[in-house]
């Protein structure tokens, strides 16, 4: 694969799920922050009945499905670092866009999880029973 082809494929398959899941989650959380909760039924009604939250939910779910599509196109070892960068994007966005207090422990925990994901991606045992 030429570098140009690679960049094109990344933009096509990896950028959309990252953008959809992070933007969708930010919108959902921002909307939930506005809501004063009175019951679980109320929560469902609010999420499904408001166009903004409903489309945010659809964005998150579509993002999840697009991750699966990306997994069928690329090696998992190539994808896992992007998956872990998604974690950092969400945490930084929560801090700077949603104004959440992200303390030292939270950053440390997230960085450890990211390192763990990258180590898992180095495993040579990735294929299922298919290729064996």
């Amino acid at each position, binding site marked *: 694969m030429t570098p140009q082809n690679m960049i094109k494929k990344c933009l096509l398959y990896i950028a959309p799920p990252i953008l959809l899941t992070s933007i969708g*989650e*930010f919108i*959902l*959380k921002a909307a*939930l922050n506005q*809501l004063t*909760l009175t019951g*679980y039924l109320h*929560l*469902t009604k609010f*999420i499904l009945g408001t166009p903004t939250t409903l489309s945010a*939910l659809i964005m998150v*779910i579509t993002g999840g499905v697009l991750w699966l599509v990306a997994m069928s196109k690329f090696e998992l070892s190539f994808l896992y670092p992007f998956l872990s960068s998604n*974690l950092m994007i*969400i*945490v930084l*966005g*929560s*801090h700077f866009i*949603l104004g*959440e*207090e*992200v*303390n030292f*422990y*939270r950053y*440390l*925990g*997230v*960085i*450890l*999880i990211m*390192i*763990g*994901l*990258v*180590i*898992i991606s*180095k*495993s*040579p*045992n990735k294929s*299922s*029973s*298919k290729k064996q």
Partner: protein
Amino acid sequence: MYTTSMEIIMIALTIITRTFTDISFKASVHIDDAMDMHHKSAPIRTKKVIKSGYFWLGLLLGALHVYSWLICLKKFDLSFMYPMLSVSYVCIMVTGRFLFNETLDKYKITGMAIITLGSIILAKSV
């Protein structure tokens, strides 16, 4: 923030439903593998997957996951809940070892241990 046992149960439920959504979907294509369908065309294989109960179980668990995720997201910060879901990767790998006989090598075990440590530290951040 004070965390009640109810909230801990909700977080656990979110992680467990996420784990078993993925396991069910894997089971639905695993049947496909076992029946040696690789040489068959995509529409035939898709039909087989949709006909398997595991596919629909996966959808049901997925819906349950979204619901419990929203309840947790209401109560906790996004910067806490989203990374916390990574625990499901550990659960998935352990379940995959027993249900699908997947190999757990030193990379996976080290990664799982570091993710677990990371989520314990993450839990301290609330």
